[in-house]
């Protein structure tokens, strides 16, 4: 499928709803508290579930005693892994040239992390279910807990997965160009290392499902916040032994997802299976402690990077060793995310000679997944390396960036791993940002402040953000997979319009942006478009929301479908009026003469004829006004940005505050600039969390010690900066209307800019920032080691 932009029905012909900051349609219900989230759904006779979870990190299950729990009034059933094995089949994740990893619905033989599933209680309410869960008596035989990814290969005693003799699941090297030659020629080799903490997504709405089995129709409906509802449906049907057309997934209003609501979780499958088995609707809503410890973690990775450089700062080649702690089970192929770090690592820099090795370890921790900008470490590592190159060569880091960054004139540029960069303003964006921030003046301020004992620091981050991920990419990266999206647009006989796409919202404002693109593509008003999302019975089969594909894939396909309908409407109007197509225009729900602007038909009149009076249609034109369209976008599109951050570090306490923050973002054509700015701010906030506050911690026994909001700290209003945002708009030449999409780049940029600003603030001490988050504790540790005092801990 090509990725052509519609030609003849050019953008200029439309009253354009694209590019306007239309206030959101979603707000009307959400502001009134009338949203419908999973926990707002209830059915007559609905039961409630609670899970019994492992208190230990790694252990064989030798016995489970459920009698006392089952006897508690209000308890309907207590089931274990063996019961679920009779009702469901296990899931398997495969990966080319690597061991397949199986995951039972509820473990039978052993638990693999603290918080792992052991049993499920179904009762008349959640309070009773929790009472009963406490009464389930489990005997464990402890096994060695594995908590360190670096020692994965040596971990042959009680390995995490029974199909793998140790814990290092993936070890792969990719080489591009002449890496050995580049390093042989180098004037210097610069080394750096970067360690990201384990994080978790923390949507304010935790996970949950309501499962409803219709006995008469033999049909299952699962209500769940689900980013990729169709794919989840396909998997759920298979796990339950149902035909796919017996399963419906409805993703209602979703209170944030950020990647955590992509997997089909074992809890979801359990609840669905039990709803069928008990023939009662069942609700399960996880609590926050479950969400923090047992749902999905992310970004627990490390980059060890070496650059071969010339004395003038030109990068000749890069070698990198990448590590990822994948946790105890696979919801994704283990190589999937860390390999994106791999190919993206050279960033926006010209690097022809590049080699990287990925190492993915299984550990006795919560399974890992994708968290908005799963590859967030990339920009910190790339920009951190550039800063180190500059420092070691005695060059200005801005100049090192300038000499190595890809500019528009270098594009299309094919990166060493084979990605085509086009229409990216990497260097131009940097220049734009620097035209708005006087680095020289800052350095003077910084020096003056240092005299007064105050530490200011500056961080600059050039961001290359991959978006969209078309089918060709999945084929190349994973051997299989689709990046296509689908839309259905319909004009009713009365002229009202509805659109349905396979993407699933969790705050991105799709109801508004889809209204805009359909209004623009078709030629109707935004208010006239109804948007139906999240229901697999209604939406055409699509790949869902992930990887910042909402704009290009999701809104793109809706736009293309709307254009097809636009063309059909004009064909009918041409036939009815006798005018040539070129003399007609459709905008604002009216067909008018392109010559003198005279109104000819309303959209409603055409629609009525198409549905109710089709004999008046042109020969060969089928009745009705509905289009189903699929679209496979380019294998990859990119947005880019430059982030500039000023911090102040208080040396005595280690506290970092952000004094100033600026972004220049180029995301091509923006559908709704207000929504894009919202994504930028939200992404920056997440980066603040990653850089300064958030880390999931396990103790030496594998207990999660950041299990509440008292200990896992996400940014609050007082620590997130008011960022200054500027836009460049360089359309992508291959996508509908030149859209690029974005949402993860701001996370990448802020992690990097903040981390590098702190590094800059303490550079004079010789301390190196290699680990995040830069909590006061970590910063004090760095400074103390240069203050000549012992850390007495």
């Amino acid at each position, binding site marked *: 499928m090509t990725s052509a932009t519609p030609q003849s029905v050019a953008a200029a012909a439309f009253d354009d709803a694209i590019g306007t900051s239309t206030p959101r349609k979603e707000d009307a219900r959400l502001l009134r508290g009338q949203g419908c989230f999973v926990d707002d759904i209830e059915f007559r006779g609905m039961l409630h579930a609670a899970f019994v979870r492992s208190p230990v990190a790694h252990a064989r299950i030798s016995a489970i005693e459920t009698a006392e729990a089952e006897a508690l009034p209000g308890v309907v059933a207590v089931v274990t892994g063996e019961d679920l094995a009779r009702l469901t089949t296990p899931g398997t994740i495969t990966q080319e040239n690597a061991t397949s990893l199986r995951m039972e619905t509820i473990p039978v033989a052993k638990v693999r992390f603290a918080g792992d599933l052991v049993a499920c209680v179904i009762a008349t309410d959640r*309070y009773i279910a929790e009472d009963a869960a406490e009464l389930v008596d489990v005997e464990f035989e402890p096994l060695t807990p594995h908590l360190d990814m670096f020692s994965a290969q040596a971990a042959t005693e009680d390995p995490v997965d029974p199909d793998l003799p140790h814990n290092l699941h993936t070890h792969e090297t990719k080489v591009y160009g002449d890496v050995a030659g580049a390093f042989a020629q180098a004037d210097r080799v610069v080394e750096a290392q970067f360690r990201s903490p384990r994080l978790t997504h923390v949507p304010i709405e935790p996970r949950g499902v309501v499962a409803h089995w219709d006995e008469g129709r033999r049909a299952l409906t699962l209500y769940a916040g689900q980013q990729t509802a169709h794919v989840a449906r396909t998997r759920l049907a298979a796990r339950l032994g149902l035909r796919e057309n017996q399963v419906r997934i409805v993703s209602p209003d979703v209170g944030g997802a950020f990647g955590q609501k992509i997997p089909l979780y074992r809890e979801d499958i359990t609840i669905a299976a039990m709803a069928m088995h008990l023939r009662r609707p069942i609700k399960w809503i996880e609590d926050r402690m479950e969400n923090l410890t047992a749902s999905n973690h992310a970004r627990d990775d490390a980059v060890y990077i070496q650059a071969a450089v010339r004395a003038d700062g030109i990068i000749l080649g890069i070698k990198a060793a990448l590590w990822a702690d994948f946790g105890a089970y696979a919801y994704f192929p283990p190589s999937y995310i860390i390999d994106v770090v791999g190919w993206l690592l050279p960033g926006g820099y010209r690097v022809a000679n590049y080699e990287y090795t990925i190492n993915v370890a299984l550990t006795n921790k919560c399974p890992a997944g994708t968290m908005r900008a799963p590859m967030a470490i990339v920009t910190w590592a790339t920009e951190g390396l550039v800063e180190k190159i500059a420092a070691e060569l005695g060059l200005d880091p801005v100049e090192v960036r300038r000499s190595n960054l890809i500019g528009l004139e270098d594009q299309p540029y094919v990166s060493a791993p084979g990605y085509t960069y086009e229409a990216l303003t990497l260097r131009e964006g940097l220049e734009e940002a620097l035209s708005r921030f006087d680095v020289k003046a800052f350095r003077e301020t910084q020096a003056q402040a240092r005299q007064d004992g105050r530490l200011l620091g500056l961080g600059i981050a050039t961001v290359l953000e991959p978006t969209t991920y078309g089918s060709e990419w999945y084929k190349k990266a994973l051997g299989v997979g689709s990046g296509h999206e689908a839309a259905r647009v319909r004009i009713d006989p009365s002229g009202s319009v509805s659109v349905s796409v396979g993407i699933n919202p969790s705050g991105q404002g799709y109801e508004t942006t889809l209204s805009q693109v359909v209004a623009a593509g078709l030629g109707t008003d935004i208010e006239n478009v109804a948007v139906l999302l999240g229901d697999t019975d209604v939406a055409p089969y699509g790949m869902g929301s992930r990887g910042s594909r909402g704009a290009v894939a999701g809104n793109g396909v809706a736009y293309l479908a709307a254009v097809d309908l636009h063309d059909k409407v004009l064909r009918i109007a041409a036939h009815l009026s006798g005018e040539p197509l070129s003399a007609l225009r459709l905008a604002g729900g009216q067909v008018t003469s392109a010559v003198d602007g005279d109104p000819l038909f309303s959209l409603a009149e055409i629609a009525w004829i198409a549905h109710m009076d089709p004999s008046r249609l042109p020969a060969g034109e089928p009745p009705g006004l509905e289009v189903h369209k699929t679209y496979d976008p380019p294998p990859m599109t990119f947005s880019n940005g430059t982030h500039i951050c000023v911090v102040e570090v*208080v040396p005595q306490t280690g506290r970092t505050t952000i004094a100033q923050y600026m972004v220049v973002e180029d995301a091509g054509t923006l559908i709704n600039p207000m929504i894009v700015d919202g994504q930028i701010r939200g992404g920056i906030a997440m980066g603040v969390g990653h850089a300064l*506050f958030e880390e999931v911690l396990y103790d030496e026994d594998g207990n999660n010690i950041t299990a509440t909001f008292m200990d896992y700290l996400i940014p609050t209003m007082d620590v997130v900066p008011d960022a200054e945002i500027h836009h460049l708009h360089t359309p992508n030449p291959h996508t509908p209307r030149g859209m690029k999409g974005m949402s993860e780049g701001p996370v990448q940029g802020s992690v990097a800019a903040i981390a590098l600003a702190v590094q800059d603030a303490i550079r004079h001490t010789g301390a190196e920032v290699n680990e995040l988050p830069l909590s006061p504790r970590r910063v004090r540790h760095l400074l103390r080691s240069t203050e000549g005092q012992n850390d*007495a*801990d």
Partner: protein
Amino acid sequence: MKPAKFEYHVPSTLDQALEVLGSLAEDGDAKILAGGQSLIPLMNMRLSRPEHLIDLRNILELQRLSVDETSVVAGSMVTQREVEQSAAVAAGNPLLTSAIGNIAHFQIRERGTIGGSIAHADPSAELPLLAVLLDATIDIRGRVQGRTVQAGDFFVSFLTTLLEEDEVVTQVRFSTLAPDEGWGFREFARRRGDFALVAAAATVRLASGNYESARLAFSGVADVPTLLHEVSQLMVGEQPSRALWGEVGRRAALAIEPTSDAHASTEDRRDLMRYLTLQVLEDSTARALHPAPLSGRSRVGSDPLQLP
């Protein structure tokens, strides 16, 4: 995270409350429900599972706040917010006003109580710290009798006080500050409203340019609030100076071995003790030298206290 079952009692008088508490304390597991802001999270996590809860919310005699020339007397069920917003308290003991404004967030302070915080005795909490610094008196009543305890004796160890199973805090009395008594309160928390990793509080008085008296106390560094009497006495007779404050801070940090946990190591807490000591001594000295006019009422969203 739903709490375990309990029986609920909501007496209308203190005597009724003590009667119920007294009879239940013998066999059952009974706890007082004051504001619930500390207790209910523990109950939701099932870390606390009292079989009986005795809710004091309807007992009017525990809800009185009175301020006179010498004392701020808060009934144990007076909310933190009421004290925070009281103009009379701000005039009589602005240290109280300032410190209470650091407790969590205003929504918590609308329900959290003076007595509840004192009885809960969290090592990093502001009210126990102030009680120890100001040598508050704590009135306690049991079914049979009452007693008064000095704050310095009241806090025994981690979340543990002198309160017996059948006793209730009824009132906390803080002295007012003398007109020439300077005060300082600073806490270090990761984000606004978080538990303090370390908090420091001080009062000083000067005469003829030298310190006449000084009190310095910390929370978050040990199981109970810690008044460093000997260290603060270093200041008596001396002139204010940064060097003196620095020395006091250094000695304070070495006088104890502060707690170490996931948020801050022993050395981190020592760093904070030094830093916060400098700040509270500077603040309190400035206030002693230049007494402020009567301060106004603290409102929701009053000027944010600068996090150090």
